[in-house]
């Protein structure tokens, strides 16, 4: 993987500082919108936050959050579920960097500003190799510097409404190859009424959020290693989903 350019390092540092200054306002606005306008809720948030705190406390080294993906609000739900706002203010590296698709999230000024303040690193799915590599270099740099990064390893919202074990991307595997000490925090989230993928969850929906940390490793190298690592993560999420539905029935 290409090394990160100094200019990109400086830009990320500047983005982090600016984002931190605006974080209380941005977080309050986003959470108010989710809680008041969309009337969303999370089941047992205290338990989830205690588990996240314990998992992070036990872990030394980089942490990559890998979650299933069904709506455009998934990132907000994850941030909301894992810790209260004041905890992110005290330890801003826990507020995860996100990796949204550039085409979808840079269309308007609103999304560009929101992405900048929301600690986002754009990626172009299926884009030119040098652009994708530049994004991956930024992500690995962030992990190495102790920042938590959040990614949707399926590469998009699942069209099957279940963790897609057939059509996922291997980019997450390349990231772990580059930073092999990375621990993966698998986050399985699902709204009670979320039967399929959508832009937004149904108003009034309640989310269940489950967490599992593991350290993916591989005996392979090159592209085969990236595929193997990405597959391990997807299968872990699929197993969490199977347990979720077994428990629900």
């Amino acid at each position, binding site marked *: 993987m290409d090394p990160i350019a100094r200019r990109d390092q400086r830009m990320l540092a500047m983005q982090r500082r600016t984002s931190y200054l605006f974080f209380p306002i941005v977080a309050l606005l986003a959470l108010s919108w989710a809680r008041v306008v969309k009337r969303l809720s999370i089941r047992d948030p205290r338990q989830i936050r205690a588990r996240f705190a314990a998992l992070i406390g036990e872990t030394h080294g980089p942490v990559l959050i890998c979650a299933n993906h069904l709506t455009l609000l998934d990132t907000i739900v994850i941030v909301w579920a894992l810790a209260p706002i004041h905890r992110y203010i005290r330890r801003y590296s826990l507020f995860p960097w996100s990796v949204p698709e550039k085409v979808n999230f840079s269309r308007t000024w609103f999304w560009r500003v929101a992405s900048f303040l929301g600690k986002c690193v754009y990626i172009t799915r299926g884009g030119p190799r040098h652009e994708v590599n530049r994004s991956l270099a930024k992500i690995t740099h962030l992990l190495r510097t102790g920042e938590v990064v959040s990614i949707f390893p399926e590469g998009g919202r699942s069209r099957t409404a279940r963790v897609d074990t057939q059509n996922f991307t291997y980019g997450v595997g390349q990231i772990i190859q580059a930073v092999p000490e990375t621990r993966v925090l698998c986050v399985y989230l699902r709204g009670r009424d979320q039967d399929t993928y959508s832009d937004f969850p149904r108003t009034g929906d309640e989310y269940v959020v489950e967490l599992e940390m593991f350290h993916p490793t591989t005996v392979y190298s090159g592209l085969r290693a*990236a*595929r193997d690592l990405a597959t391990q993560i997807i299968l872990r999420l699929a197993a969490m989903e199977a347990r979720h539905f077994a428990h629900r029935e």
Partner: protein
Amino acid sequence: MTDQATFDRVIDIIKPYVKNGDRLATAKPETRLLEDLGVNSARLVDIVLAFEDEFDIAIDDEAADRVSTLGDAIAVIQEKTR
């Protein structure tokens, strides 16, 4: 192995990943995997790994990045089997 033999084997390998099956019947070396044949970009890695298995070669990331058309794929395979 002749260019045509390699081409035929490449076609067989990529067949399961192709969405525009009609284009495959008239495919030429200039045919682009993503744009013309509708291969999902994420599946390019699977195709490259299938080339490795089928031709018993190792394709590094740099060579894999060069695979854009059928002709590119054949060139990489021939370079590695030489």
